[in-house]
C-alpha cells in the first residue's frame, strides 16, 4: 500500500474538524463498505458516530448481515476503545412527517396530508424536496446536542453515487431559490451553509479502473463548481501486484521466456523435462491461442506437452494480471494528479464481513484519513 500521492491524507490540516463525512462513488466501487469502515475508524477510541444511508438501499445492513436499518437510530457496531457506531436509514416520508410535526405541530393534519398523497407528492415528486429532506435529517443529526455536547462526534453519510452526488448536495441551494420564503427556504439555506463549510467533506471512492476514475474526475469538477469541499479520494479494492515490476511489460505482451517459465515449473515440481529455452509465447488474442493449442495437441500428450500447455495457460493469466496492474499504475498516476489526500484499501480475499471492516478501518487510520 505504498504509492500515496504527494498530498497523502495525513497532510490535510482540516480533517479533524470535519463533522459530516459524505461518501460517494460510482456504483460498485464499495461506497457502503468504505462508509462503514470510516465510521468505525472515526468511532475508535470511545467516540459515538452515526452512519446514515439515504437511498433505502440497505447496503449497510446487507454488508453486516443485520436487520434492515430503520428510522430510529440504533446501535450497529462496537469500535475499538469503547466507541460505537449507530445506524440510520433516512426515509423521506418519515423525515417530512417529523419535520411537519416539529415545525407545525401537525398531529392529525400530518396524517391527512399522507392520505391525500401529499407526502408522496412532496417526497417523490416535488423536485429536490426529497433530497432536501434527506440532507435535512442528516443536518439535524450533525447538530444534535445532548448534555451540552454534540450527540455524535461525526456523521458518515453513505451518499448517492457520483453521477448524482452534486445534484443531491445542491438540492438545498435550488430549493432555497425555488421556495422563496417559508420555513423550508430558511432550513435549506442553513443546510447549504453546513455543506459548504469546512465541517463537511465529500470523499470519493473509486476503483483503479478507467470508468470509475473518469467519473470521479467529473464529480470532482462538478463539486468544485458547486463550491463543495472534497475530502479524501479512496482507491478501493486495490489488488496486490504478484509479479516483479520488471516483468509486467513483457508479461502483459505475453512475451515471458517460455523456457524459463517451464524450467521454473519443473523446479517447483510441476512438470517433466525442460524444453529448449528462448522461445517466447506468441501473444494470444482472446482465446485464439488456446484453440490452436488444442488442435496441435496429439491424442496422448506427453509430459513435455502438458508442461508447455500449463506454462502457456499460466502466461495467459499472467498477461491479464499484468495488463491490469499496468493500467492501475497509470490510473493511480491520474488520481495523484488530482492533488487530493488519497488512501488505498486492499482487496481482501473472501469478500467483506465484519472482520474485514475493522481491518479496513485500521487502514484508514494508518493512512491518516482519520486521526
Amino acid at each position, binding site marked *: 500500500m505504498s504509492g500515496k500521492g504527494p498530498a497523502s491524507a495525513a497532510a490535510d490540516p482540516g480533517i479533524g474538524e470535519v463533522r459530516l463525512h459524505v461518501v460517494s462513488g*460510482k*456504483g*460498485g466501487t464499495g461506497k457502503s463498505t468504505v462508509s462503514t469502515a470510516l465510521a468505525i475508524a472515526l468511532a475508535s477510541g470511545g467516540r459515538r458516530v452515526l452512519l446514515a444511508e439515504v*437511498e433505502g*438501499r440497505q*447496503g449497510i445492513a*446487507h454488508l453486516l448481515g443485520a436487520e434492515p436499518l430503520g428510522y430510529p437510530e440504533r446501535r450497529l457496531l462496537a469500535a475499538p476503545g469503547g466507541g460505537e457506531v449507530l445506524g440510520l436509514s433516512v426515509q423521506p416520508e418519515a423525515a417530512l412527517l417529523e419535520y*411537519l410535526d416539529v*415545525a*407545525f405541530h401537525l398531529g392529525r393534519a400530518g396524517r*391527512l*396530508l399522507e392520505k*391525500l*398523497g*401529499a407526502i*408522496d*407528492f*412532496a417526497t*417523490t*415528486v*416535488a*423536485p*429536490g424536496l*426529497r433530497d432536501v429532506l434527506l440532507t435535512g435529517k442528516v443536518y439535524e443529526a450533525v447538530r444534535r446536542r445532548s448534555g451540552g455536547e454534540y450527540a455524535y462526534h461525526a456523521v458518515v453519510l453513505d451518499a448517492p*453515487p457520483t*453521477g448524482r452526488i452534486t445534484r443531491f448536495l445542491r438540492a438545498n441551494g435550488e430549493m432555497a431559490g*425555488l*421556495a*422563496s*420564503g*417559508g420555513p*423550508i427556504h430558511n432550513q435549506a439555506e442553513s443546510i447549504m451553509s453546513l455543506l459548504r463549510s469546512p465541517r463537511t467533506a465529500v470523499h470519493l471512492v473509486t476503483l483503479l479502473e*478507467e470508468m470509475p476514475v*473518469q*467519473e470521479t474526475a467529473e464529480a470532482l469538477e462538478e463539486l468544485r463548481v458547486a463550491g463543495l469541499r472534497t475530502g479524501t479520494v479512496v482507491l478501493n479494492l486495490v489488488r496486490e501486484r*504478484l*509479479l*516483479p515490476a520488471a*516483468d509486467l511489460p513483457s508479461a502483459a505482451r505475453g512475451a*515471458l521466456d517460455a523456457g*524459463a*517459465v517451464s*524450467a*521454473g*515449473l519443473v*523446479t*517447483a*515440481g510441476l512438470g517433466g523435462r525442460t524444453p529448449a529455452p528462448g522461445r517466447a509465447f506468441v501473444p494470444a488474442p*482472446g482465446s485464439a491461442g*488456446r484453440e490452436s493449442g488444442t488442435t496441435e495437441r496429439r491424442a496422448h500428450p506427453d509430459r513435455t506437452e502438458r508442461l508447455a500447455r*500449463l506454462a502457456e495457460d*499460466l*502466461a495467459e*493469466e*499472467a*498477461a491479464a*494480471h499484468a*495488463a*491490469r496492474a499496468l493500467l492501475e499504475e497509470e490510473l493511480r498516476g491520474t488520481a495523484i494528479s488530482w492533488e487530493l489526500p488519497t488512501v488505498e484499501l486492499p482487496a481482501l*480475499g473472501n469478500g467483506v464481513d465484519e472482520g474485514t471492516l475493522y481491518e479496513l478501518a485500521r487502514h484508514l487510520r494508518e493512512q491518516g484519513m482519520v486521526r
Partner: protein
Amino acid sequence: MTTVQPAMLKCDELLADRTVRALVCCGSGGVGKTTTAAALALRAAEQGRRVVVLTIDPARRLAQSLGLAELGDAAREVPGVDDTAGGSLEAMVLDMKRTFDEVIEAHATPEKAAQIFANPFYQALSSSFAGTQEYMAMEKLGRLRARADHEPAGWDLVVVDTPPSRSALDFLDAPRRLASFLDGRLLRLLATPARTGGRAYLRVVSAAVGGATGVLSRVLGGQVLRDVQAFVAALDTVFGGFRERAERTYRQLQSTDTAFLVVATPEPEALREASHFVERLRREGMPLAGLVINRMHPPSAGLSAERAAAAAEELDELGEHATVAGMLRIHADLVRRHDRERARTARFTGAHPEVAVVEVAALATDVHDLPSLRRMGRALASG
C-alpha cells in the same frame, strides 16, 4: 455437491431471431449494462440486422467510439461497423429533457406547450425529477419501436440500455409512478380552488383540502404551489395522453417481440437485484431472454489453487524463479476468486433454474472501442 446446471443463454440465436424487435438490458448500476447493450447491438448489426442502440449516460470514450461525441438525441451512424452482412448500426444518447418536450408537443397545442415549457415546475420535473429518466427511456423505446414499425426499410432491432437506477425495478415502476402522479388526486385538488357551498360533507372535504394545501404552501413556499397549479392547469389536456402512453409502452414490454436481458456481476448485491427483477418479469408476463453475468474470472490453467500455492512457496524457499512463483500465485488467486464467484452465481441459478445464463469473463482492460466491443460480443455469444 451437486449444482443445478442452468440452460445456456444463446445470444446469437436471440440476435438472429427476426421476431425479436426490442432488446432491453436491465440490471443495477455499475454492472456493465451500457457496454453489454452496445456489444450486442454491434454484433447484431454485423450479423445483418439494422440496429439502433439507445444508451443512457455512456462513458465518454465509449460514446466517442460510437460516434456520439456531441450530445443530442438524434440517432447517428456508428463509424467502422462491418456492413458486409447487410446490417447497420446507429446509436443515440437519451436526452430526457428533449424527449419530455416532445411528449408535451405531441399532446398539447403550441400555445399550451409554450406555457408548459416556461413553467419552472416543468423545468425541474423534466430535468431533475426522480423517475423522469426511466420514464423517458421507456418513452423513447416506444417511439423508436413505432418508427421501426412504420419504416419497413428502417431499423429492425432496437437495443436499449436502462438508467443507472439504484434498483433495476425502477425502470418498470418509475414511469407508472410519474404517470399516476400527473393524473393523481393531489394535483387535481391543487388545481381546483376549494369551492364553497354545496353539500355539507363536501364543504368539510374542501376545508380539509384547503387546510392541506395551505400547509403545503407554507412548507414549500407559496411560489412553488402556484407554479404547480399553473402547470397542472396547462397540463390538463395532456393528462389522458400521459397515462395512456405510459400504459401502452408498459404493455409493449409484455409482447413477445421484446426480450429482456438482465445483466449482473458475480457480486451479492447485483445478483440480488437480478433475482428481484427476474421474479418481477415473470409476474408481469414479460419475456426474459436470460441473465448475463459479467466480469467472471475463469482461470485458464487446470491446476488446483492448493497445488499452485504450494509450488509458489517451494520456489520462494529455493529463492528461485520469482516470476514463475508470481504466476502461480496469480493462478491460485484466480481459482479462489472464481470459486467464490461460482458459489454466488449458484445461489441465483439454484433459485431460478429456468433462467438461461451466459457468463462473460472480465476483460483485462475497459471496453471502449469497436474491437473491444466485438470481443465482448464474442464472449456473450460463446459463454
